[in-house]
């Protein structure tokens, strides 16, 4: 294993030299007691050591700049590097969140203009950029649900989620103090309308849904679903994790959703994975705009300056400091402006085409429970490999690492046994997809003819098969300084 940066230390070695301090320092008596005379234990290395160390670490890790990353529902697309340049422009990176509105007109204009684009793309009426991720957007949504029904004097204590929902949906409902009602999918992999009708009544606050769903299948009955929920006075929340499939083609606002979140760090190409930062703005229909977190950006009365508006009547309050993770928003804005609406439509078309190409080429090698046209992702199953040769989906996933491909999402959604949930995204080329198909076919053939190779994988990675139970119960994550 690579040494830690602390272990590379050689006393006195430096990566750069600061000029001598040219100010007379006369510490106030009051401050003196707090000055630590002991040197801080920082690594002492040359710039070259520093560079080599971190470049080496980056090769040990897997990332989207290194290989294909078909992680279902996570939309690990390529992150265009120009986004980084734009986000680092002084006007975005060197401003202070407490600046007066008139000093940050550029930033406010960007937020205002991007909101306009997102409204066109989604069919919603008003956005907040505060939520820092999709699940945070969901939490914002559930708080709005709660306050909306409190204001109406309605006592609703349940949220419906389909059994194919992202795990964050029931978790959010539970965090919001709601009881979770799970409804089963029908044999087409979609929401069962009868089950929804049975579950929906005046005690239900609403439905959390993603469309296309986690099987990559478009909920064709979405208008009827919306009607069933609205007829009983409930609200519809759109989990935007799968928006990559439908941009420029259909809009959650037109489907009947009342609140949507978008994942700027998935669909709009800002980097993610490794813990963020993300950005999960939510958009609402007109009748909910007064519930959004504050501040929101608006134009002043003359219509030529931008200002922050704290005056929303029913606001749920703050959900994040200032305006959210603005740097991520800038990257997503750059992406959106570069592509335009036509370009974004092409993104979704290519994302769906790529997923169908993989699905059709692999359905003979892996069991496909829902064999129909998919959107941006699809779910294969390793159940035949498990039954025939005791090769589990986890083994298949680990074996993929040996071929330089990140495994897909596994064991989710739970309605498919031994699930492999694959989302190639639009940014993989045909050559890259063909390479993926070749790898998956090879692993299927190994599972038959040489199962031990798959079961003991990975063989070529910096660390071999980890004891996942031990890693979860007793993680060893920190540097011990002796």
């Amino acid at each position, binding site marked *: 294993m690579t040494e830690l940066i602390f272990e590379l230390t050689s006393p006195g070695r430096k990566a750069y030299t600061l000029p001598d301090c040219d100010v007379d320092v006369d510490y106030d008596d009051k401050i003196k007691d707090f000055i630590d005379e002991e040197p801080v234990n920082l690594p002492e290395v040359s710039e070259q050591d520093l560079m080599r160390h971190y470049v080496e670490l980056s090769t040990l890790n897997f990332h989207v700049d290194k290989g294909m990353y078909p992680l279902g529902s996570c939309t690990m697309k390529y992150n265009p590097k120009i986004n980084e340049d734009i986000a680092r422009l002084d006007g975005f990176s060197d401003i202070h969140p407490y600046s007066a509105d008139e000093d940050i007109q550029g930033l406010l204009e960007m937020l205002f203009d991007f909101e306009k684009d997102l409204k066109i793309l989604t069919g919603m009426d008003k956005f907040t950029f505060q939520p820092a991720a999709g699940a945070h957007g969901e939490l914002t949504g559930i708080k709005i649900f709660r306050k909306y029904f409190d204001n109406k004097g309605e006592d609703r204590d349940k949220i419906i989620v389909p059994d194919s929902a992202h795990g964050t949906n029931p978790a959010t409902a539970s965090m919001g103090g709601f009881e979770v009602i799970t409804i089963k999918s029908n044999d087409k992999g979609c929401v069962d309308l009868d089950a929804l009708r049975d579950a929906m009544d005046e005690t239900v606050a609403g439905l959390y849904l993603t469309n296309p769903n986690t099987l990559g299948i478009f909920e064709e009955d979405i208008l009827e679903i919306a009607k069933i929920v609205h007829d009983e006075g409930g609200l519809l929340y759109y989990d935007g994790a799968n928006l990559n499939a439908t941009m420029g083609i259909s809009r959650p606002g037109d489907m009947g959703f009342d609140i949507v979140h978008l994942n700027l760090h998935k669909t709009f190409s800002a980097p993610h994975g490794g813990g963020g930062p993300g950005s999960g703005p939510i958009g609402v229909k007109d009748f909910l705009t007064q519930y959004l977190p504050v501040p929101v950006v608006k134009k002043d009365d003359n219509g030529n300056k931008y200002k922050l508006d704290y005056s929303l009547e029913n606001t749920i309050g703050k959900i994040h400091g200032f305006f959210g993770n603005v740097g991520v928003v800038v990257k997503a804005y750059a992406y959106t402006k570069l592509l335009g609406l036509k370009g974004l439509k092409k993104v979704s078309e290519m994302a769906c085409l790529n997923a169908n190409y993989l699905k059709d080429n692999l359905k003979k090698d892996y069991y496909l429970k829902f064999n129909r046209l998919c959107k941006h992702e699809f779910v294969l199953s390793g159940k035949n490999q498990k039954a025939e040769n005791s090769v589990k989906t986890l083994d298949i996933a680990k074996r993929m690492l040996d071929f330089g491909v990140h495994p897909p999402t596994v064991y989710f959604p*739970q309605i498919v046994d031994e699930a492999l949930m694959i989302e190639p995204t639009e940014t993989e080329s045909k050559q890259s997809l063909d390479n993926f198909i070749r790898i998956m076919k090879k692993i299927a053939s190994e599972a038959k003819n040489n199962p031990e190779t798959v079961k003991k994988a990975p063989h070529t990675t910096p660390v071999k098969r980890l004891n996942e*139970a031990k890693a979860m119960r007793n993680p060893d994550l920190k540097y011990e300084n002796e």
Partner: protein
Amino acid sequence: MAREGLMYTDSDEWVQKKDNNILRVGITDHAQSELGDIVYVDLPEIGEEYDKGDDVNEIESVKAVAEVKAPVSGKIVAINDQLEDDPALLNEEPFDNGWIFEIEMTDPDQLENLMDLEEYESKLEE
């Protein structure tokens, strides 16, 4: 996979009849194998009462969280607190030291809804 002399539920719990209407409950070998390595068991409180089919406690594995359901209505009279320190017992000895709780049933007639070994095995084959 399963064991003679025990009763089984649809949701893959096994039930062993002890004295005085007390039943010992655990999850089957099939259930632990589907879950994979178990990393955490959230045990119920002694004295808690449950209706048949209620979620009694949660089991967390490296790939999923599963609920253990009450096979009959009754009151928890014992828990296997060894599982707190060593949840892997559920993987290693699901029918023995991996038992989860004991419940004192209020309605012995509910035992008739449970499966015997043969019925459970044919359910697994479906």
